[in-house]
């Protein structure tokens, strides 16, 4: 449907303006550099509507500027009383009819694309052997993190969504506590995560994320959800089919076992104080109290937004409220087995060694 509108891309001012701005945006987050069919359809609508609207603005501007120049008092004369015109039926007709035509012109693609983007009929369709033909992800938004479960594959992860490219990926979206909104600007528009009910939608990822600046698309929470709403970021890795299958297999086999002495110390600490909320195996289902950490070592950010360094991890563990106000991770002192005591520098080293060792990408 949108193919016919492609010609608008070459259209005058709008396109020139957009091309200029596309150069400004960051590829991994800009709606102006779509990397999926949904975002592309939306970008086409943006160009179409901007083109039409720029036309409207030009018409208004011409009349406006001419009127101001021609009929300014300096030119017309101080004491001149202009003719008191009542109106003109013909003009009223023209400027009623033309906007109606413009609106109809915009309404057709609007309605068509609205239905097209809502089409999730193929979600959960299975082939002859009962294997689902497409990937479905159950997304649960929580204060202030994202859980991504793959019910058909028996795996669950958090904070970094991993998807295959070049096929529709279906989503079931819900919120566990307050309303949030799921948004990956360069892939497609947002859908709200409501506390009542599940929203379903699809996205396609047409480019592998590996070529991007940090190898991921950026995702955002787009609905005010409390103090750390601004920090409720997530990331998206889009892998080709083979890599995705390898990732799934690695996830299914991940155990959360540490390698190396320091990391094993860390694992002991973790199992004493953290395991009650954080799972470390990717095999599992939705409903985690806190983010699943099976892929922690593969991630791009600490706490969703801080650079992925051991130093930041230690800061975050030690003072969670300082870095993400209002989040639900307890201070170290109140964790099981801590009896009011914060983690020492050595303990933090051990935890960091353990957590950074949690990776499935090495096993792919």
């Amino acid at each position, binding site marked *: 449907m949108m193919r016919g509108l492609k010609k608008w891309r070459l259209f005058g001012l709008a396109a020139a303006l957009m091309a200029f701005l596309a150069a400004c945006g960051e590829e991994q987050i800009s709606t102006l550099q779509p990397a999926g069919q949904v975002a592309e359809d939306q970008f086409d609508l943006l160009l179409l509507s901007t083109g039409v*609207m720029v036309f409207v603005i030009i018409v208004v501007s011409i009349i406006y500027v001419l*009127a101001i120049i021609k*009929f300014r008092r300096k030119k017309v004369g101080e004491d001149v009383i202009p003719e008191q015109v009542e109106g003109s039926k013909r003009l009223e007709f023209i400027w009623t009819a033309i906007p109606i035509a413009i*609106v109809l012109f915009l*309404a057709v693609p*609007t309605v068509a694309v609205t239905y097209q983007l809502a089409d999730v009929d193929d979600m959960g369709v299975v082939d002859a052997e009962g294997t689902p033909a497409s990937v479905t992800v159950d997304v649960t938004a929580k204060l202030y993190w994202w859980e991504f479960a793959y019910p058909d594959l028996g795996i669950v992860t958090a904070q970094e969504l991993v998807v295959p490219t070049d096929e529709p990926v279906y989503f079931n979206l819900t919120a566990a506590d307050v309303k949030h909104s799921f948004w990956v600007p360069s892939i497609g528009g947002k859908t709200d995560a409501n506390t009542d009910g599940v929203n379903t939608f699809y996205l396609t990822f047409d480019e592998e994320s590996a070529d991007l600046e940090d190898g991921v698309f950026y995702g955002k929470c787009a609905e005010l959800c409390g103090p750390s709403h*601004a920090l409720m970021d997530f990331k998206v890795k889009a892998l080709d089919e083979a890599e995705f299958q390898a990732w799934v297999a690695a996830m299914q086999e991940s155990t959360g076992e540490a390698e190396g002495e320091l990391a094993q110390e860390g694992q002991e600490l973790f199992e004493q104080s953290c395991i009650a909320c954080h799972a470390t195996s990717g095999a599992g289902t939705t409903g985690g109290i806190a983010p699943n950490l099976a892929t922690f070592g593969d991630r791009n950010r600490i706490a969703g937004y801080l650079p992925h360094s051991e130093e930041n991890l230690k800061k975050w563990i030690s003072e969670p409220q300082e870095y993400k106000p209002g989040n639900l991770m307890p201070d170290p002192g109140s964790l099981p087995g801590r009896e009011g005591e914060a983690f020492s520098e050595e303990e933090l080293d051990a935890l960091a060694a353990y957590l950074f060792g949690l990776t499935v990408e090495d096993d792919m």
Partner: protein
Amino acid sequence: MSSTAQAQKKGFGATLWDYLTTVDHKKIAILYLVSGGFFFVVGGIEAMLIRIQLAVPANDFVSAGVYNQIMTMHGTTMIFLAAMPLLFAFMNAVVPLQIGARDVAFPFLNSLGFWLFFFGGVFLNLSWFLGGAPDAGWTSYASLAIASGGHGVDFYALGLQISGAGTLIAGINFLVTIINMRAPGMTYMRMPMFTWTTFIASALILFAFPPLTVGLFFLILDRMFFANFFAVEMGGNTIIWEHLFWIFGHPEVYILVLPAFGIFSEIFAIFSRKRLFGYSALVFATILIGFYGFMVWAHHMFTTGLGATANAIFAVATMAIAVPTGVKIFNWLLTIWGGNISFSTPMLYALGFIPSFVAGGVTGVMQAVAPLDYQLHDSYFIVAHFHYVIVGGVVLALLGGLHLYWPKMFGTMLSEKLGKITFALFFFGFHATFFIQHFLGLLGMPRRVYTFVGDQGWDLYNLISSVGAAFMALGVITLVINIIMTSVKNERVGNDPWEDGRTLEWAIPSPPPFYNFKQTPLVRGLDTYWIEKMEGNPEGMTYAEPIGDIHMPNNSIIPFIMSAGLFVAAFGALYFIDGDKAWPLPVLALGLLITLGSMAARSLKDDLGYHIHKEDLLKEGGQPGGH
């Protein structure tokens, strides 16, 4: 003769008492103007704090929690406590004069409406000093509003409930006034445009505020009295809040912008020295916009998940509003076309409004394209859009209207020179602040974020936006200086200080005597004062009656007490849920008792008003305010 001179004569206490008890629409206008202006400055300071925080990435000027309070209060204050009352100020000051009336239909209710708004606004803002302001956004979506700790959201719900009642009362009052109090000869199709837009906006208030009232009561009951309207785990539903809020919220935009259109219509006609082009088309466009305004609320909920059919219907319905709005723009353009344009300060605002509002309108149509809105919604694009509509439409009208009507309200002209500087600073600052925000949204920046990580392509644009905001602030400061200097100089002006006035308010002294018209005028056409002037009538009016006794209402302190009772009751309701204090329930009861008691007093005691006698009127117009 002037009210200020009168005030100095009367002393501070007497003046204060006069304003606490007044039922005169012109004084109530000044009350609305002063308190609305105060809240405008408060909301503006909050805006500046927002832009300081967002000027650079990872800023820690304010904390996350405080930012959400500031952002919530900025929106709530600007909409409910600044824009609405400032428009009511002009409606009160001008509409009764425009229709040749001696006052509004219900002067007592007029006072009550103001005091309810005032106490609601004060209550809401006291939250800053009593544990923290509301922090769930001006929309206070249910799940977050219920989850929000502390009493902030309680202040929001109760404060808006009280001030909303005032707004509803004011709206009904204007409806009745415009239907019933028009001077002989003023048919509906001879009503000045500002009166028309006030009329339609009042009708919108009548239908739009009740859904808000219902939603706020649900919120109050859920948060303070153990109800579960929005508690999903108890079978409640949070989406219903979104519907109730936006069934109010979308018409609210027109409640604000229609009177703004009215003010601009007056300005275009006066400063082009020309009759409004296509007056009847403008009237019908106004009615149509008001009507459509109730059928499009779900365009705020395209991403909520209402389904493709609902989204498609609301998308097309929303686009349809562009048609009557376009009709208005073109009629204004054709009003100045062929006119004799004077670039006085009010006209600068009106001329600045056209491109600004067209920009806000076209981005509105873009957002009506539902699938595109999935990208634009809750991003900085929408922030840019609604500021183009509300600042580019409403605030420019308020500033233009302030310059236009200042001489009528206070009998002295604001400085044109400072006025033009204000306009230049504000207009430039406005576009610098908000134009760039469209692109921030397109580049992926969500709204309502207290900070942002650098290097996402947003750093420079945010800085530009913050610098622009500083220019707006400079503009407002210049305006305040202008007001102070003008009041000190106090050079008196005559009936028609802009010299090209067209409607009845310009036919009487500035400020008008407290009874407005010594004799009720006879209206002989649209722009009746212009007609009389053109025919060389030195009085500027044809009279519908001989000079006779005038019946006037008495002042009353009851509206103040009635509103204060609700203010007291609100504290009881607010702290009731804490359960650790004994006083909330008695305070709630006491407050309601004060309100009900004053209602009883008003109902049981006849107040028949008084008469200004013919003889006194013949002796040089009687003493303004002399009762």
